[in-house]
């Protein structure tokens, strides 16, 4: 069976969930060979093997942390040349898409970004994408070269499928471009203890109706009662009530959780672009005419300052 390269997104050896989803999808089109780079790369092997990686190619060098994107492109290209895979899959993070694009150009291959599903086809993998603010679904394939495809988080359920996961050292020679953009400083984001927004099974979001940074506490309390991530609409972010990293929408993150709860969000097209593929959608809004109600499975027309605390209390009671 043909091999498929899977680029591993990890933090100091801890593999992030979208990579495990990618391994599940990769098995539909071939045998997954994982590529893990940077600090802790070899520590990813056990988890990757458990989820189907037959081989794990690893390489660590200071360049991965000290310079932007290109060292990782050089390494993925080295893996591509060593493996001659049938496809290359990369998580659809901002950095993942940049790495994938540059690799695709170098190897003369087409690229598909933000796939939400992947199937084997007669002429190579067929990717499903959700476009125009999720109002259309397309099926596409790469028609030139080796398909390079980036896949969005939450596109597949993670399935364990134990494989050998043999660790092999990847040999990498960095290009002249590798050191072009220096990372001169890095401030780690403080952990909130909540799930990562794009990976969370439940997302609780607040918008204009939350009416102030101080009021986001009730949104966070609801999120915590459900073990959910907190999102915010662009209006709430632009007003400075919540960090941009939590913005859901066209210019923020797109999320596709099992449950999305929109609080005080009207549902402008830009916001819908980021959450419309959520499986179950719930909204609480004072305005019965808000477009968000066109999307919901369950909506409450009411003041979120009454409804949300009551909901949070009821969830806590039910969970005991």
């Amino acid at each position, binding site marked *: 069976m043909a091999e498929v390269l899977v680029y591993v997104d990890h933090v100091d050896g801890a593999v992030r969930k979208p990579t495990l989803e990618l391994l599940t999808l990769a098995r539909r089109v071939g045998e997954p060979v994982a590529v893990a780079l940077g600090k802790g790369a070899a520590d990813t092997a056990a988890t990757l093997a458990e989820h189907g990686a037959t081989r794990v190619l690893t390489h660590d060098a200071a360049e991965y942390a000290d310079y932007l994107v290109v060292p990782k492109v050089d390494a993925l290209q080295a893996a591509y040349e060593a493996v001659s895979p049938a496809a290359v899959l990369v998580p659809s993070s901002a950095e993942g898409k*940049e790495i994938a*694009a540059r690799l695709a150009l170098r190897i003369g291959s087409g690229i598909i970004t933000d796939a939400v599903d992947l199937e084997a086809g007669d002429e190579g993998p067929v990717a499903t994408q959700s476009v125009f603010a999720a109002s259309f679904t397309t099926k596409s394939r790469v028609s030139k070269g080796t398909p390079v495809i980036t896949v969005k988080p939450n596109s597949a359920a993670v399935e364990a499928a134990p494989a050998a996961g043999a660790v092999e050292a990847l040999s990498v020679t960095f290009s002249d471009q590798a050191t072009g953009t220096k*990372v001169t400083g890095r401030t780690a984001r403080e952990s909130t203890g909540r799930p990562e927004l794009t990976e969370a099974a439940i997302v609780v979001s607040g918008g204009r109706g939350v009416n102030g940074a101080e009021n986001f506490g009730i949104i966070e309390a609801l999120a915590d009662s459900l073990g959910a991530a907190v999102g915010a609409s662009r209006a709430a972010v632009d007003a400075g009530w919540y960090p941009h990293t939590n913005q859901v929408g066209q210019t923020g993150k797109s999320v596709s959780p099992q449950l999305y709860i929109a609080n005080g969000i009207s549902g402008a097209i830009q916001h819908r672009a980021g959450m419309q593929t959520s499986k179950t959608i719930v909204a609480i809004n004072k305005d019965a005419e808000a477009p968000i109600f066109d999307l919901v499975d369950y909506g409450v*027309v009411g003041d979120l300052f009454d*409804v949300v605390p009551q909901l949070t209390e009821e969830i806590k009671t039910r969970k005991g």
Partner: protein
Amino acid sequence: MSLRIVVTVKYVPDATGDRHFADDLTVDRDDVDGLLSELDEYAVEQALQISENSDDDVEVTVLTVGPEDAKDALRKALSMGADKAIHVEDDDLHGTDVMGTSLVLAKAIEKAGFDLVISGMASTDGTAGVIPALLAERLGVPQVTLLSEVSVEDGTVKGRRDGDAASEQLEAALPAVVSVTDQSGEARYPSFKGIMAAKKKPVESWDLSDLDIEAEEVGLEGAWTKVEAAAERPARTAGTIVKDEGEGGKQLAEFLAGQKFI
């Protein structure tokens, strides 16, 4: 010293319109009004701010690839304050994918001459967000992308990139390709004076032969990817909507419990 900035902009179908596909599975541009991609306004704004904050002689050129109507996007950028515009237009460009688009942009940027390229973080129609990285790869210059803050001084571009795990300070020598996010700073509205002045600013038109690009390298036939099917997402079945009369939170909890979320 002088600094030549090229801002890449895209003319996109209005997201609030009814966007759909044409028979050949390319984006139907006839039925929906187009406009300058909102995310590219941030790129124009940062170019203008770099220009205004510089002691050097700065020239801001806006560049687009697209049909006749795409001139509207250039006109908007000129009315914001850009100095001149380049429009690459050719019938053979219809259906070009990101690889072809990045080729045309890169050739045009090289022909125009540049010290700095500034792009928006993504277009609001395709939303792939890969053009800036592809331009850096094609032009062989550093990419300094997804910046929420950007500045240029003494031949060096600096910026802040806010990622999921960390916020990074970046630095590269010019020439370079930069992309900016919607957090980089509100884009200005064109003034009446700006709109009047824009009418007199030069707009150059180039076609594929001006850029030494063969028709087979671009367009639907030259694309490295193929859309095989496009279907409208089925309308969601109407949900249950209740009015809160004191028990709204409890009713919602009951629904969530029924769906096994609690």
